[in-house]
């Protein structure tokens, strides 16, 4: 550690600042610090680092309760006991050497006493001298005491001044305290005002909240009503939907029934038509049969004027009914697009009336039945011509067969 005096390391300064060196080491570093301004400033830097380290390393705790009260209590007590504080003590210490002088005078008395003991003839003078010395000493002491007194007076004056100064400070502090009290009152008043405002605001808030609550309830009620209506509408819609479905089903049924009815009606119509046809046929057949069996029917056999075999035709005609039956024999075959046509020659001499067309079979036989001849009139004769297929309205010459009623 002796090297430290010449060359003090920072870590030695640290241990020094931490008070962790031996007394010898401490003395050595102290000497270095005293002697070297550079070491002093390095020591200060190390102490700064210590402060920073401590502040960063320590987790802050809360101080015990009443700590501040205790401190302020001690301060108040110290103010009471020593109103002016340390300067008095310092002055007392400074005054101490003055008393040391008294001890010095006593020593000189002893020395003087020793001398008087050894040199008896000089006792009286010595005594006188001693007294003089003592008197001188006393004078000095008196002077010293006077000086002390003077000093004390000065101190007292100073103390009075300081007291006056302290009083002024106290007054100033009192004024300051008054000012603070006033500020506190102002703040309290402001706080009260703010609290009132807060209360008012709270009331307003409560009112608003109540209104909001009422509106909310109303809204809820409306919502419930709307919900009810919605349910009704929904139910109605459901009913409508059901009815629509039923209607559709009914419509379908109706349509099906209509179809049935329509088809039955058609069937009925066709059956009725068939019935009517059968009835007509039956009537025609009866009329033919009646004509054939009628005793009043005119029966004529027609023959070719020359040649053999002779083509012949027989016509049976009931003029009152218009029923006509013709039968032909030995008729000559015709070209493909030709037919025979029978003509009624009216008795009144009118134009020949067409009475039907026919074609002969392979043996030359043919028959024609016309149940109701249109424009049936009394006949004087019948004639046959060859016409184009489909018949004609006027006979085309020559007349192949002819027969007169007779």
């Amino acid at each position: 550690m002796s090297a430290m005096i010449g060359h003090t390391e920072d870590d030695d300064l640290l241990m020094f600042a931490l008070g962790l060196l031996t007394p010898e080491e401490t003395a050595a570093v102290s000497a270095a610090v005293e002697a070297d301004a550079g070491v002093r400033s390095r020591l200060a830097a190390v102490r700064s680092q210590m402060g920073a380290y401590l502040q960063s390393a320590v987790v802050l705790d809360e101080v015990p309760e009443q700590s501040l009260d205790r401190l302020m209590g001690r301060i108040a007590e110290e103010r009471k006991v020593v109103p002016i504080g340390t300067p008095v003590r310092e002055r007392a210490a400074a005054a101490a050497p003055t008393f040391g002088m008294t001890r010095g005078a006593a020593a000189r008395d002893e020395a003087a006493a020793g001398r008087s003991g050894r040199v008896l003839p000089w006792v009286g003078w010595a005594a006188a001298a001693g007294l003089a010395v003592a008197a001188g000493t006393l004078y000095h002491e008196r002077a010293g005491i006077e000086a002390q007194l003077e000093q004390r007076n000065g101190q007292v004056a100073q103390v009075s001044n300081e007291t006056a100064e302290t009083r002024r400070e106290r007054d100033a502090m009192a004024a300051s305290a008054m000012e603070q009290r006033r500020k506190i009152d102002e703040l309290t008043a402001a706080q009260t005002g703010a609290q009132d405002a807060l209360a008012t605001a709270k009331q307003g808030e409560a009112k608003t909240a109540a209104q909001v609550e009422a509106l909310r309830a109303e809204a809820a009620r409306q919502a419930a009503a709307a919900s009810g209506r919605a349910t009704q509408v929904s139910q109605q819609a459901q009913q409508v939907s059901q009815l629509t479905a039923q209607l559709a089903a009914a419509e379908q049924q109706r349509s099906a029934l209509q179809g049935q009815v329509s088809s039955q009606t058609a069937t009925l119509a066709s059956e009725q038509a068939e019935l009517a046809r059968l009835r007509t046929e039956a009537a025609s057949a009866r009329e033919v049969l009646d004509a054939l069996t009628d005793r009043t029917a005119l029966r004529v056999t027609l023959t070719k004027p020359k040649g053999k075999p002779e083509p012949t035709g027989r016509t049976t005609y009931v003029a009152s009914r218009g029923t006509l039956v013709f039968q032909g024999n030995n008729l000559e075959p015709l070209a493909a697009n030709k037919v025979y046509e029978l003509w009624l020659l009216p008795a009144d001499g009118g134009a020949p009336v067409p009475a039907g067309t026919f074609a002969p079979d392979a043996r030359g036989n043919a028959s024609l039945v016309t149940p109701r001849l249109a424009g049936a009139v009394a006949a004087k004769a019948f004639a046959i011509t060859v016409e184009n297929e489909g018949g004609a309205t006027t006979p085309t010459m020559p007349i192949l067969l002819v027969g007169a009623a007779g």
Partner: protein
Amino acid sequence: MSRNPDASDVSTAGIETDSDLLARLGRGDETAMTQLFARYSRLVYSVALRVLHEPSVAEDVMQEIFMQIWRNPGSFSAARGSLGGWLSVVARNRAIDVLRRRRPTDSVDDLALAAPVDLLATAEHNVMLERVRVVMAKLPEEQRRSLELAFFEGCTHSEIAERTGDPLGTVKTRIRSALLVLGKAFQG
């Protein structure tokens, strides 16, 4: 103020500096004492408690330090360093004295701290403290442990060597390295 109980904290900078408070203390203003206590009592108490582990004893140390500031507010010159740093060193040293039951080794007056940063440069000061905190957290465990033994348990080099079982030279090297890192962080 919760983390860095420093007078130059932004929240208080606008109100009154530590120097202002100390000046008012010099005029016997007790309200200044109340404010100073609010600023630094937790720091002083916590440092003492870290060393002493006894709340009542730590509180006594704190009370004594604040009484000394009251009696002699001029002992700290704010122009020369951070009041927080100064108070934490004083608190640590008083607490170690109590721990070792011996008379105070140094008087409050002796402890002047260097001021590498302007006290009023609050942000910078707080940044520095944060930097120190980060650097210390990264320190190797044995270095950090050695520093803690010296600071909070008052162990000398040889006592640390005895406690850790490491050679004295190693212990010294560790503390020297830790201090170097600390110094660098402190200077930025």
